[in-house]
């Protein structure tokens, strides 16, 4: 490792038993953390301990286990709030994943259509505009696209430059007085671009629009402080940050959550209920209908403890080093073309590429035979693929446990791919 990184990667790797796995006769090189990260023993152990010792439903039972489970669940909420610099734990809504968190936001607008007393910030109709970018994961495109189709509002987007950056030159034409909400990706999952936020948030304030971030690929990899960012909402997911699947987070400003109609309705989200009508609980309970992912919340809190112990600045430095090494090594492969920024500045350790005319599915299959796990396909970002004229890419992504040696193996295995398909 370079001196810049303060991570003891070998010690980190020892916490992830899966990294010892063999694929056939090869040691696993897991370069697919942008899809989902692996979990350290500390996370698995925290969930096991909770399940074996304190498992119960939350917020309703008077017995000891019920109380312990409630404390654990609400403790996890407070831990998340602290981690992202939120003013108040009640601004943290647990969801299933980022996708559900973004849908929750989009449906606040859609449900407001049917509510004459709805807050004007959520009133959307013909003549209003919603802004995203061309580099969104489908999770932050389709909910807004469908919302616009249903309400008659217009969907607009910020384009991508040839270098894989946001096209901000004409920002004032894309975001206008008609814009009601802007939701954009913080770190792009296919391109690896880390988007600057201040210009967009400043423009949002200027026109009085709400502004939010899909932070799925940023919260796991760099310090994220919602107060510093000056946004109204962010969404991220547990399983990409060393935590379990089945739990995600919507953070939104308290006054916004208060004004938003609920998304899913049912148990646990009510104040009083009669056969004719219901009054709703205050946020965050208003948005957490049904039994939530309790053990998963415990696991997410343990993942945050783990990340905090490593230090988010150290993680960022480690990944900057990985990104630089990956770009340098991959650029040296004949016939390989990087899709996305080619310099390790404003960039994550997620690198997509095409390789000669060989289909990424085939690249991924040969790499798998060498024990190397990468993602292939359109990465739920078809418009990005289209922008760069490709059907699919191969994507390698690094995290806290990845090493230069694994990148060397990737490069070497690409030679094998060339042999089979050359």
């Amino acid at each position, binding site marked *: 490792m370079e001196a810049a990184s303060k991570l003891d990667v070998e010690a980190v790797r020892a916490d992830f038993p899966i990294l010892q796995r063999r*694929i*056939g006769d090869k040691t696993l090189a897991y370069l697919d953390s942008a899809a989902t990260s692996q979990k350290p023993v500390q996370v698995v152990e925290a969930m096991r301990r909770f399940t074996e010792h304190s498992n119960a439903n939350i917020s309703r039972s008077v017995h000891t286990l019920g109380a312990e489970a409630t404390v654990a669940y609400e403790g996890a909420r407070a831990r998340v709030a602290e981690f992202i610099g939120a003013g108040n734990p009640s601004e943290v809504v647990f969801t299933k994943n980022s996708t559900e968190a973004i849908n929750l936001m989009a449906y606040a607008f859609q449900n407001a259509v049917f509510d004459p007393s709805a807050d004007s910030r959520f009133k959307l109709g013909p003549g209003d505009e919603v802004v995203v970018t061309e580099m969104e994961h489908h999770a932050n495109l389709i909910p807004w696209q469908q919302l616009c189709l249903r309400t008659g509002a217009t969907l607009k987007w910020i384009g991508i430059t040839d270098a894989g950056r946001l096209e901000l030159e004409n920002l004032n034409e894309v975001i206008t007085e008609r814009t009601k909400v802007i939701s954009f990706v913080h770190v792009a999952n296919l391109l690896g671009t880390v988007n600057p936020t201040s210009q967009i948030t400043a423009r949002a304030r200027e026109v009085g629009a709400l502004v939010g971030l899909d932070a799925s690929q940023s919260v796991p990899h760099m310090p994220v402080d919602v107060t510093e960012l000056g946004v109204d909402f962010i969404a991220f997911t547990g399983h990409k940050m060393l935590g379990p699947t089945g739990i995600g987070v919507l953070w939104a400003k308290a006054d916004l959550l208060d004004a938003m109609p609920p998304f899913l309705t049912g148990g646990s989200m009510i104040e009083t209920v009669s056969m004719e009508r219901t009054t709703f609980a205050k946020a965050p309970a208003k948005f957490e209908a049904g039994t939530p992912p309790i053990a998963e919340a415990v696991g997410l809190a343990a993942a945050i403890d783990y990340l905090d112990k490593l230090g988010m600045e150290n993680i960022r430095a480690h990944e900057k080093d990985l990104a630089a090494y990956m770009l340098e090594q991959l650029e040296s492969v004949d016939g390989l073309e990087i899709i996305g920024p080619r310099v390790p500045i404003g960039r994550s350790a997620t690198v997509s590429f095409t390789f000669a005319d060989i*289909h*990424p*599915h*085939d690249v991924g*299959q*040969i790499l*798998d*035979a060498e024990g190397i796990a990468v993602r*292939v*396909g*359109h990465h739920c970002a*078809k418009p990005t*693929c289209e922008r760069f004229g490709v*059907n*699919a890419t191969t994507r390698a992504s690094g995290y806290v446990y990845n090493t230069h040696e694994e990148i060397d193996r990737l490069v070497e295995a690409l030679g094998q791919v060339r042999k*089979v*398909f050359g």
Partner: protein
Amino acid sequence: MNLDELYQEVILDHYKRPRGAGLREPYEGESHQVNPTCGDEITLRVHVEDGKVADVSYDNVGCSISKASASVMYELINGTTVNDALAKLAEFTELMNSKGQSEGDEDSLEDAVAFAGVSKYPMRVKCALLGWMAFKDALVRAEASIPGRTDA
């Protein structure tokens, strides 16, 4: 993992030199299929004449498995009767769903038995079936557009 089993020479050969590729006239049925997990696509046309598959033409983008499979399918069903083609479709689909337990009947499936190894890779079965699904769909459309056909 035995890659040779997956990427047999015959598959790579069909991939590099696809048979019957390109869209042609005339045709009665056309189908467009995509594999949503990887973005592979195929547009396929069927020309039916006197109860026979008189032509299958296609244009596709995709991985070696999906492209080779379309090419092998072309060789297998072009010029056969519609009923024979449907039988091959059923037989190939069964082979792909065999999870590596079947070797396939070479007398009947010819080059398509090379895909037996694919059936062990659940993520790739869809690739191998994409062209066949397009054929099945195009045939339904062709038959809907030909009046008087009753023997399907």
